[in-house]
């Protein structure tokens, strides 16, 4: 597997960095790969948008940033507008279906898949786990990382007492993603 460059974007408070961190942990700690996570400072964090850049690779990662992602994971319209122009041709954008409207801004050959992550989170009892649903969706659609690795990464990352609900959120997103997997 060559490098896969991922950018997670959304509003501050949605848990964008945690989302990126779980993907990175799943790859580097439990998935036997290299992963580098960089949080956006500077102009890219302007306004309320914030983002995490995650590079996953079988080999040592040289260039640490993500300029043209292969995969976008987006939880807000601002993030969509900001990052969609950077997406590689033939890349993939995974988005929160109620918060993001792709409405024809998609470049040629790009696959776009939405997930009602907020609704799933609310159905499970906590809107807060929306970003974990997104992680699950990402894992299910891309198949980039083994589910067990992602599960372990979630357990490593969430506070004691929240594990059960977070794992449910992960599975919900994952199953929805498997249905749409390419």
């Amino acid at each position, binding site marked *: 597997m060559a490098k896969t460059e991922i950018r997670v974007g*959304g509003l*501050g*408070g*949605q*848990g*964008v*960095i*945690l989302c990126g961190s779980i993907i990175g942990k799943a790859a580097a700690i439990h998935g036997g790969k290299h992963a580098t996570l960089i*949080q956006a*400072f*500077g102009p890219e*964090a*302007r306004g309320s948008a*914030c983002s995490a850049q995650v590079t996953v690779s079988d080999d040592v990662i040289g260039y640490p940033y993500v300029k043209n992602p292969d995969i976008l994971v987006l939880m807000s319209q601002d993030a969509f507008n900001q990052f969609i122009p950077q997406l590689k041709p033939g890349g993939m954008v995974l988005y929160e279906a109620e918060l993001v409207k792709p409405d024809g801004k998609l470049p040629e050959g790009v696959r776009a898949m939405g997930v009602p992550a907020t609704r799933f989170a609310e159905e499970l*009892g*906590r809107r*807060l*786990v929306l*970003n974990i649903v997104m992680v699950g969706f990402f894992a299910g659609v891309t198949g980039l990382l083994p589910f067990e690795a992602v599960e372990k990464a979630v357990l490593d*990352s*969430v*506070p*004691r*007492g*929240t594990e*059960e*609900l*977070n794992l449910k959120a992960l599975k919900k997103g994952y199953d929805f993603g498997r249905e749409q997997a390419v």
Partner: protein
Amino acid sequence: MGPESFPQNIHLRDGSSATLLPLKPGDMDALQAFYRNLPEEERLVLKDDVASPQWAKSFHQRLETGEVISLIAMAGDRIVGEGTLYRTFRGWTRHVGEIRICCHQDYRRRGLGTSLAANLVKLATDLGIEKIIVQVVANQLGARKVFEKLGFHKDAVLPHHVMDLAGTKRDLIVMANDVSQIWAAMEAINQDTPLHMGD
């Protein structure tokens, strides 16, 4: 209540075991029999007149609406313990759930109460209840220890609030577990660090 969690086989400290499962409407008679078998002193602690048919009807209704969630512990075909989570959907304490645990005399001091309580705490958390309380009498040291281990702290003391059969008054302690703290921790790690410039 996730059906996949129950029935749950638990092993107790003395080597015996019990099965935890949700109370079903058909179990009401067995439950009332369990209550009637408690010593009178202890039945006094139960707030409601649990032996009466009116109570059974009201309890059954609240089971249906979800205002009451009850777990029972079975050893063979006997109920040997019971734990209930009370909540309201409207009103100013709709974010609070109250737990009450009751174990048969032969099934005490071996982890059954702890197990019932732990399961109810988990259920309450998953339901989005923000605060769980339990009322204990000041001299119920064993019960207080159990709840402390489960993350409860002393929230309020009502002095001389409960009176036993002999007329002795004791303090009532309300212990609480701020379940919302756990989710506050989750919210904290979801805070994406803000941009900071300058020194």
